[in-house]
């Protein structure tokens, strides 16, 4: 896996909110995922070490470790003992799935609101069709 030998660590922005209800490790996971999906991070890019990330963000090492483990489990990064963590090869299906999931979440909100206000599916479809066509 020579692609993972790159020693240069990429620059990336991670913003942690302490007042958010989302646990800190989840904030890291979703932001790194977003960077990978948007193409700001590319296959083989080296991520900062867990300890460095913890130091810079002033959070516990356990938190950054958990975030990296989660990203690895979902296939976004690979960790190589003694070398560090790297962005995994792009799995288009995985990315598509994430994107659809994100849209689904927004749709669910629309459905909830529609139910609350008594708006029918037909009306919703009509609205969406119009908006999608840009009218």
């Amino acid at each position: 896996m020579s692609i993972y030998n790159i020693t240069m660590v990429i620059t990336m922005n991670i913003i942690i909110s302490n007042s958010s209800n989302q646990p800190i490790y989840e904030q890291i996971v979703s932001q790194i995922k977003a960077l990978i999906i948007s193409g700001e991070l590319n296959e083989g890019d080296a991520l900062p070490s867990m300890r460095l990330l913890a130091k810079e963000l002033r959070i516990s090492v356990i938190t950054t470790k958990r975030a990296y483990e989660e990203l690895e489990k979902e296939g976004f990064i690979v960790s190589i003992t003694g070398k560090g963590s790297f962005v995994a090869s792009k799995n288009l299906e995985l990315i598509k799935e994430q994107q659809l999931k994100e849209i689904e979440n927004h749709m669910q909100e629309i459905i909830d609101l529609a139910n609350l206000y008594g708006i029918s599916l037909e009306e919703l479809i009509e609205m969406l069709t119009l908006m999608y066509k840009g009218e």
Partner: protein
Amino acid sequence: MEYALTLENVTKEYKDFKLDHINVYLPKGCIMGFIGENGAGKSTTIKLIMDLVKRDEGKITILGKDNKTELNSIKENIGVVMNELCFPENLNAREINKIMKKVYKTWDEDQFHSFIQKFSIAESKLIKEYSRGMKMKLAIAVALSHDSKILILDEATSGLDPIVREEILDIFLEFIQDESHSIFVSSHIISDLEKICDYITFIHKGKIVLSEPKDELLERYGILKCTEEEFEQVNPAVIKGVRKNKFGIEALVLKNELKGNYVIDKADIEDIMIFYIKEQMV
């Protein structure tokens, strides 16, 4: 898992106070915050770790070595900062350096000087002219200028202004970049330490109330805010502490086990500590 510090069933009885079968496990590479109110037993525990007072029962290991029989082999690897600075007041930093060179085989003069510079401590200034913050920084500089692998601090950051606390936090974070380094820090105020701690151990009246990863604590607890009527409907098993006021109720709850639509705020470590202590006083 490899541990930097372990205490097993450590007991020490005084006339009016008992440290009661304390168990603490600090994994290597981690920072543990040891918290509790004044008089809870924090300093006694640290003195027992350093073998400064004799324990009645139990076993303590530091960096895998027994703290009674094998302490000599690891003394150079332990950096200690106590609440009060223990250097003679009529010395200056330059003289401290000279003394430490004779005390520690692993004394690193350059390291010490770079700390002194970083902390803007004038080398010729007498210790008795130091502010509290400077004294603490000198003690930390000494603790980190020999081959320290574990840093043990007793109330080292209390009474310091936010800027100095911030500097000390940075030093801790720098120290912990080496995976073989660990920190055990006691305090009764932890707000700023809370962010960087991996583990929280909470001692109350000589007993360990809880000791676990900080993230798990913060995810488990929440502060429920509701009316008295609503409160009566809540399953008592999830309530860990209550505070009533004229207009409603605040309660420390296990938030993930609370079903229904409630207003739940995040609980920080201090909230958890205060609710626990209050609950036990009722």
